[in-house]
């Protein structure tokens, strides 16, 4: 049985991972087909009907400006997933390039890179993101940038240690002796083997990115009104905690469930890719 098939079967056996996959697929579908799935325009305000509790017309009720909560949550999925993928993607690309160079070439490059990583890591990630937004100003793109930048060190470290480890292995040494160029070694030999920890890490990082961006949105530093970002929705609904609980409850649940599904999948992938677990 091929390696891939083995991994797939192991993953399938993990019930949580499967549930996570199903949940995530629903979110992805919401994100892609938001325009068709959402019953109302998420930005369409109908002030005359604000703070309406869940009803047959509005399944999850309306928010403080009369916008349909369900539609906003569905469109929010698009914002959050897009945000997660882009920030993690950016961090991945930069982090891997830097980490691979440090791990492969070693020496001064490695020392300098690790120092830089240490310095960036001397700020807690959330603080780093807040700092970047404080400089650039609040907004969704800036939040994406901030979250992305705060994730780069992790990828750098991970890639570097993977490369350090793989570099010493026999098949790499063999390729070197045969005279293969560095680029060939990196791209054909090392990189494919370092993919699995990166996949696991990325899945978990998308979850973290969504949480961080939601936190920024909650503080008012991320997505700005009227964008239906889940964190910002929570922050607006906060003063209605006592009279219209649904405005806070549902966006929060959306965050929890989407992040949970990603974490379940990440865990499942980690266990499936672990050669020691049967």
């Amino acid at each position, binding site marked *: 049985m091929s390696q891939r098939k083995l991994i797939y079967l192991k993953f399938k056996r993990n019930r*949580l991972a499967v549930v996570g996959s199903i949940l995530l697929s629903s979110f992805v579908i919401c994100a892609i087909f938001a325009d068709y799935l959402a019953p109302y325009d998420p930005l369409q305000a109908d002030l005359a009907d604000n703070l309406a509790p869940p009803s047959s017309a509005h399944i999850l009720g309306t928010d403080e400006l009369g916008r349909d909560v369900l539609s906003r949550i569905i469109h929010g999925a698009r914002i959050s997933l897009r945000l997660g993928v882009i920030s993690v993607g950016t961090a991945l690309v930069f982090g891997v390039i830097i980490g691979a160079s440090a791990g492969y070439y070693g020496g001064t490059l490695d020392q300098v890179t690790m*120092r830089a990583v240490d*310095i960036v890591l001397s700020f807690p990630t*959330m603080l780093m993101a807040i700092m970047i937004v404080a400089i650039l100003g609040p907004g969704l793109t800036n939040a994406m940038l901030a979250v992305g930048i705060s994730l780069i060190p992790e990828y750098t470290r991970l890639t570097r240690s993977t490369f350090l480890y793989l570099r010493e292995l026999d098949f790499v040494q063999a390729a070197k002796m045969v005279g293969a160029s560095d680029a060939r070694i990196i791209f054909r030999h090392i990189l494919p083997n370092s993919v699995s920890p990166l996949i696991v890490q990325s899945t978990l990082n998308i979850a973290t990115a969504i949480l961080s961006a*939601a*936190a920024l949105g909650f503080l008012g530093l991320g997505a700005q009104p009227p964008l239906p970002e889940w964190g910002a929705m*929570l922050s607006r609904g906060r003063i209605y905690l006592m009279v219209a609980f649904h405005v806070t409850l549902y966006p929060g649940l959306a*965050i929890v469930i989407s992040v949970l599904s990603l*974490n379940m999948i990440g865990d499942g992938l980690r266990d499936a890719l672990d050669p*020691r677990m049967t």
Partner: protein
Amino acid sequence: MLRYALRRILMTIPTVLVASAIVFLMLRFIPGDPALLMAGEDANPEVVQSLRRQWGLEEPLPIQYLVFLKNVFEGNFGFSIRSGLPVSYEISLRLPHTILLSLIAMTLSIALGLFVGIVSSTRPYSLVDNVSMFFALVGVSAPVFWTGLMLMWVFAVKLGWLPAVGVGSLAHLVLPSITLIGFTTPVLARQTRSCMLEVLRQDYVRTARSKGLSERAIVYGHAVRNALIPVITVAGISFGRLLGGSIITESVFAYPGIGKLLIDGIFARDYPIIQGVVLVYALVFTLLNILVDLTYVYVDPRIHYE
């Protein structure tokens, strides 16, 4: 060991310096005259001029940085635009609150996380394990501000048992602490469990078992000791999570710590405050990391004999 400790501390000095340089540069990145940014847009021109002199804003950038360092060493972080009071004073008013909250949350969540992690790992895939790991998973996935709001809703609004915002009594600490603990414990529990499982699988554990040692002795004597190293690493990382989470928690509960000061400062465009608080956080975090490294020394026999 002392030499190692000293070496470790010395190694962080350049890191701290560069981190402070980043904070210093922060203000220079924002479009606009740094002196006006520090004084407030409608400030008296004399005030602006004196700020220019005090922070050496007319000198080239590297000299500015040295002036900045000198000021910081003297405890002069500038003056808050909002209040006109020294930033160091504003911070000193609120730092105790943050420390208290963070200390409580960290101690309790380390204790709880370790406990749950160890217990779960000794009974893998049992009901206890599955249930606690599921809760840990949910805990890791829930945004800290949402848990905070939900707790506030249940205990302060609906039941009225606890105050929702501010400080003034032990009761005010409960909800923010629980929120923070709920934020950091799951990570620790999960990591402890996976590290412990890793260790318990090892050959020497099997050897110990076959030698007839009690399960308890194995777990506490061998497994925990060896699992501690990666766990301490995670504890160190979760300090960062804790600090970040405390900023948000303080906002949710209007708890007057430096996190709330930072957020208020951002909305007031109070750059001296922003700079000062960020610096404090970076310093505290670095100190915590040093602490973590020193704990390694205590725990890891390999370093012991270096």
